[in-house]
């Protein structure tokens, strides 16, 4: 045909399309709802997965890949099956693990909850973590003032304490963390007085644990003063978790096997009946990933379904619009609009609906990600490319679902259209 292009400039197409949308504000708004939800879901979905990825990356960085976690299956309540009762994982087990081939270092954890007093400040239910000098290194904690306790203090059950950042502020005031004012002070746990020798740098929440609200003390203090066990002499002191750091990632499987055999021997049960959990960083990441993957695919479905439903809504309303404006189409045709001019006008209008919906959806998605991040504790990171992607899918939906009504409009017979009431 080789017809030259019509005069209609992009700005006029946009203006006419905008007028078409603005004439029926409520209707347009309702039509856009599907797109809004879809686009918001796309952004939220990507924000959640990006947030999870960032968290995982952070954990790998902070913990190192060659770390094995050994924990008691029954929260340290009792050994099953054997003729003895007591803890499933004890301090001596941890010491034995330290001697295994390929093990670089270990750290041990045993928690308690105590009333903590310092001067005239008393805090109830403070989380106390009895641990070993290797703890700051495996959990990537640094000391902001003073120092962490050492092996000698652990062995001698020295009455020392290292405070989490937030706890130090609560006990000794906000300025205590920067200066030395907390160091050398006395804190009282129940009836045990400990001397503060260090304050840890701020760490924040990791998972659901607030690392800054805890008091760290030699694990021997826990055994001796806070939760002395009647079976300690026989069985050893119960611990909740042992971190085993291997010399390299290659020996991980070998070390895990050694730990299993060691524990089987010490507990006098077959390996299958062991009551300890042995997990690695990799296992934890996989669990987290599978949870977020489920969540993500749910959101992806919500996004896809909303976009399709939104698209059908747009198609529906555009078909109504074509019918309502049949006469207008006839007029435009009579004064020289070609079928492609008409088609372009209606595609532009559908596109306008989906893009305005997309814009609102982006705002809702960014706002929703922020809200979701602050209320659920799940980290969200809004990626700029997710906004582009969401916008792009909205545009694609507009063009795809707008084409059918637009083609219908373009194929109208001018005589019929002009006669339309």
């Amino acid at each position, binding site marked *: *045909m080789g017809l030259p292009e*019509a*005069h209609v400039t992009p700005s006029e197409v946009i203006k006419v399309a905008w007028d078409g949308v603005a004439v029926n504000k409520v209707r347009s708004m309702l039509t856009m709802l599907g797109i809004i939800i879809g686009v918001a879901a796309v952004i939220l979905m990507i924000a959640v997965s990006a947030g999870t990825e960032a968290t995982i990356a952070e954990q790998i960085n902070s913990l190192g890949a060659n770390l094995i976690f050994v924990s008691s299956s029954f929260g340290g309540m009792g050994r099953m099956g054997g003729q003895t009762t007591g803890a499933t994982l004890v301090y001596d087990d941890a010491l034995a693990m330290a001697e295994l081939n390929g093990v670089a270092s270990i750290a041990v954890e045993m928690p308690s909850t105590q009333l903590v007093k310092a001067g005239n400040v008393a805090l109830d239910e403070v989380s106390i973590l009895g641990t070993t000098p290797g703890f700051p290194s495996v959990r990537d904690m640094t000391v902001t003032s003073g120092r962490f306790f050492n092996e000698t203090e652990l062995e001698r059950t020295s009455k020392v304490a290292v405070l989490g950042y937030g706890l130090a502020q609560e006990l000794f005031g906000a300025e205590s963390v920067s200066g030395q004012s907390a160091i050398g002070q006395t804190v009282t746990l129940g009836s045990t007085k400990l001397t503060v020798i260090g304050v840890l740098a701020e760490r924040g929440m990791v998972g659901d644990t607030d690392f800054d609200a805890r008091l760290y003390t030699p694990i021997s203090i826990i055994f001796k003063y806070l939760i002395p066990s009647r079976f300690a002499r026989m069985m050893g002191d119960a611990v909740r978790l042992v971190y085993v750091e291997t010399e390299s990632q290659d020996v991980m499987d070998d070390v895990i096997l050694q730990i299993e055999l060691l524990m089987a021997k010490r507990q006098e049960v077959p390996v299958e009946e062991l009551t300890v959990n042995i997990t690695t960083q990799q296992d934890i990441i996989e669990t987290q990933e599978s949870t977020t993957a489920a969540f993500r695919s749910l959101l992806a479905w919500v996004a896809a379904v909303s976009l399709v439903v939104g698209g059908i809504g747009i198609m529906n309303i555009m078909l109504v619009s074509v019918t309502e404006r049949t006469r207008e189409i006839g007029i435009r045709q009579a004064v020289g609009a*070609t079928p492609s001019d008409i088609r372009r006008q209606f595609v532009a209008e559908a596109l306008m609906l989906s893009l305005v919906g997309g814009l609102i959806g982006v705002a809702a998605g960014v706002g929703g990600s922020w809200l979701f991040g602050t209320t659920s504790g799940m980290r969200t990171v809004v990626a700029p490319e997710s906004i582009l992607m969401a916008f792009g899918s909205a545009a694609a939906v507009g063009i795809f679902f707008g084409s059918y009504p637009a083609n219908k409009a373009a194929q109208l017979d001018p005589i019929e259209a*002009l006669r339309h009431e």
Partner: protein
Amino acid sequence: MARQPIIQTYGIRKVYGMGDIQVVALDGIDLQIDEGEFVAVMGPSGSGKSTLMNILGCLDRPTEGRYLLGGEDVSHLDRAQLAAIRSRRLGFVFQSYNLLPRTTALNNVMLPLLYQRDGKLSTAEREEKAKLMLASVGLAGRIHHDPQELSGGEQQRVTIARALINDPLVLLADEPTGNLDTRSGQEILALLHELHDRGRTIVIVTHEPGIAAQTERIIRLRDGRLESDGRDGSAGGARDSF
């Protein structure tokens, strides 16, 4: 002959319906309308005058026969090409005005310029042109009014301004005074006369003998054929002159 032929039709037939039932709306129309003529098409309903106007207006194509508009054969063009012809060569005035609602007189008059394919103008130039055109139909003071704010006569003037904005070869008016009171109707007719005096070729469809009588030439249709042509008093006059 000094005057150029604007419209030439040769044996135009228009048949509606496929298969068994066929309705012949036009049955061999030979017609010639020259530059500067003021022609009225009359005929009872069902005579085919609307069909003829649609074909002359390039809104429809004849089933058979040839139609030359300004010497260009437009009988077999596709829809897009017909649209381009309407844009370049034709101006329409409708009985019911057919102005875009919620759109100012100025923007209504500018509408055909939007779809123009040659001699593109800037927005400012188009506005200027539309303003001049509205002024020439006596609506200089009403350019920013929407159609619903204008009287019938004023709306019809806007339609005429819109029809003339692309400087068409011929102005096609379908019952232009049909919706107007006598006085407004006379004013519109006076405007058409004025345009004719300035050399504009005009074809109007009307069923009012009083209006037809004011034109130079009356073409009567009956049952899809030319019953009489005021040019030479008989049907088929156009063919003779060719």
